[in-house]
C-alpha cells in the first residue's frame, strides 16, 4: 500500500514539475494577484488622510490623529497598516485552496482517459489511489506556499520584528492542515463527478464563496452580518488569521490564545475532512 501510494504520488508530482508552462503559470498567478490586488488596490491607503490636511493642524493634534488612524486601520486589518502584507498572508491560504481544487479536478481527467481503470484493475488498495491524490495535492500546495512567500517577500512583505523560524514553521503547519482538509474535501466531490464541465462548474461554485467569505482578502469586520457568519465557519479565515499572526509576530505582542484557537479549529477540520473525505472519495471508485 505504501509503495503504491508513493509511486502514484510521484506520478502526480512529475506531471507538474516537468511541465515548464505549468511552473511558469504557477509563478505568474501569485505575482498577478500580489501585484494587482495587493499593490494597486491599496485598501489601507484609502482610509488614510492626506498629509497636507494633517500638516495644517497643530503638532500635538497631528500626532494624536496619526496614532488614532493607524490604530484603527491596524485593528481592522489584524495588526498591520500595510494592505499588501495583509493580502499576501491571505493569498497563501487562497493558493492552498486553488491547488486543492485543481488537484481534485485531475481525477476527472484520469477517469476520462481510462487511467483510473488502469489503477482499478491493478492489485492495489483503493485507498492508495485516494491517498496519492491528496498527498500530491498537499505537496504541491506546500511548494506553492513557499514560492509565494518568497515572491511576496521580494515584493515588500513586512514581517513583524520578532518573526523567526518558529513563526515560519507555524505558518507552514497551518497551511498544511488547511491543504489536507481542503484537498480531501475536493477529492471527495470530484471523485463522484464524471464530466469535466460539471467539475469546473462545481469548483467555481465552491471556490468563490470560500475565497470571499473569508478574511483572506478583506477584514471580516467590514462585512455584512450574514457574510460574517459564513466567514466565521470558513477554515480559510482561521488559516488566514493564524498565518497573519505568525507573519506579523512583533515584540509588541502575539495573540497566542487566538492562534491556539485557530489551530484547534484547523486540526479538527483537517482530521474530520481528511477521514470523511477519503472515505467518501473511495465510494467514487465503486464499480457500476
Amino acid at each position, binding site marked *: 500500500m505504501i509503495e503504491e501510494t508513493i509511486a502514484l504520488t*510521484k506520478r502526480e508530482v512529475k506531471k507538474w514539475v516537468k511541465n515548464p508552462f505549468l511552473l511558469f503559470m504557477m509563478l505568474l498567478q501569485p505575482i498577478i494577484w500580489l501585484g494587482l490586488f495587493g499593490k494597486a488596490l491599496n485598501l489601507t491607503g484609502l482610509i488614510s488622510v492626506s498629509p497636507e490636511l494633517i500638516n495644517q493642524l497643530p503638532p500635538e493634534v497631528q500626532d494624536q490623529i496619526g496614532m488614532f488612524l493607524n490604530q484603527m486601520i491596524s485593528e481592522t486589518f489584524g495588526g498591520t497598516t500595510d494592505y499588501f502584507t495583509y493580502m499576501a498572508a491571505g493569498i497563501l491560504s487562497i493558493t492552498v485552496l486553488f491547488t486543492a481544487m485543481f488537484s481534485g479536478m485531475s481525477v476527472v481527467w484520469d477517469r476520462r482517459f*481510462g487511467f483510473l481503470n488502469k489503477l482499478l484493475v491493478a492489485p492495489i488498495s483503493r485507498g492508495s489511489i485516494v491517498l496519492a491524490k491528496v498527498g500530491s495535492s498537499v505537496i504541491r500546495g506546500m511548494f506553492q506556499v513557499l514560492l509565494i512567500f518568497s515572491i511576496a517577500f521580494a515584493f515588500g512583505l513586512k514581517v513583524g520584528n520578532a518573526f523567526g523560524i518558529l513563526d515560519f514553521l507555524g505558518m507552514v503547519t497551518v497551511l498544511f492542515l488547511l491543504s489536507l482538509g481542503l484537498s480531501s474535501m475536493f477529492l471527495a466531490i470530484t471523485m463522484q463527478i464524471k464530466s469535466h464541465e460539471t467539475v469546473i462548474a462545481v469548483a467555481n461554485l465552491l471556490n468563490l464563496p470560500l475565497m470571499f467569505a473569508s478574511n483572506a482578502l478583506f477584514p471580516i469586520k467590514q462585512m455584512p452580518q450574514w457574510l460574517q457568519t459564513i466567514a466565521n465557519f470558513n477554515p480559510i479565515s482561521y488559516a488566514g488569521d493564524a498565518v497573519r499572526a505568525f507573519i506579523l509576530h512583533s515584540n509588541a505582542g502575539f495573540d497566542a490564545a487566538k492562534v491556539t484557537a485557530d489551530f484547534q479549529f484547523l486540526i479538527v477540520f483537517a482530521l474530520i475532512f481528511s477521514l470523511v473525505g477519503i472515505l467518501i472519495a473511495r465510494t467514487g471508485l465503486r464499480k*457500476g
Partner: protein
Amino acid sequence: MRVIEANDLTKRFGQLVAVDHVSFSVEESEIFGFLGPNGAGKTTTINMLTTLLNPTEGSAKVGGFDVEKQDGKVREVVGLVPQDITVDDDLTGMENMMLQAKLYHVPTKVARERTMEALSLVALTDAANRRVETYSGGMRKRLELAEGLIHYPKVLFLDEPTLGLDVQTRVVMWDYIKKLRDEHKITMFLTTHYMEEADVLCDRIAIIDQGKIVALDTPENLKDSLGGDIIELEFNNKKDDQTDTLKSLSQVKDVKKIGDTYRIKVSRGEKALPDIIENLLKMDLRIGRVSLIKPTLDQVYLEYTGRSLRETQGETMEVWRRMRTLRRVRE
C-alpha cells in the same frame, strides 16, 4: 483447469442488454478469442471479468475466484491491455512502464529487464525517454501493449491489442503473445476485429453479436461448420429480390442477402457455380458480378453476424477513435 468460467454473465445499461447470458470457459494457457462487431459487448465482458464492472446477472470466476465477491483476489491474477489508450501523456515511456511495474509489485530489477525487453519488442527503445505526448497513435498503442506484458499475469486480457498497428508490428506481437503463452503458461482472452489475428492466434473463438454468443469453436471447426463454399453474386438489376428464385435451384443450400449481394451456400462450389449461372441465364437474369469463396474465418463471421467485418470496423468507429486521439493530443 478452467481459468475463466462465465455462467449466464449479463450486463444491462438501463434498457440496453450489452451482454446477454453469456456462458463459456477457458482452459489454462489457452488463447481464447472474442470476435464481434462494434457494440457487441466484448469490452463489457472484459470489464466484468477484470472486476471493473459488476455483472447485473449471472456470475464468473477468474483464476478460481468470483469476480464479484473476491474481486481483490481476481485482480492479483489478471492483467489487462485496454482497448483505449490509457498511458500517461505527461510521463516518458520508461516512466509509464516503471509505474505499471510498481502497481503490479514487480521488483525494480526484474521490471527494468522486462521493460527493456518489452520496449525493444514494440520498437520503442529509442523513444523510451521521450514524453508520451510526443508519440504517434501507434506508438502509444505499442506502449500500452508493452505495459500489459510487464508482470506476466496468470490471465491476460487483451482488448483489441493490435488495433491501429502496422502489419509488421502486428506479426511481431502475435509471435510474442504465443511465446508468452508457451513459456509462461499465460492464459489469454483477446478480442479482435482482425480475422487473421483470430485465426493465427486463437485456440478457440467465440463469435458474439448483440450481447450473445452465436458460435463457439476452434477456427477449423467454425470454418467446417459453414458446410461448404459460398458463391457471392450480384445481379445487374438490383431492384428485384431474387432470393426465392435462387433458393428454388437444386444446387443451392441456403441464400442470404446482404445489401445487393446474395450469399449462396453450396457444396463443391467449382461444380455448382457453372450450373447456377446456366440456370439464371435461362431465366434471363443478368449477372453483374460473381465470385466463389472458400471458407475463411471472415466467411464464418459474416455467416453468424450477417455483417461484413470491413463494414463494421471501417468507418464510424475508426473515425471516432481517431477523433478521440486527436482530442487527447490537443488537450
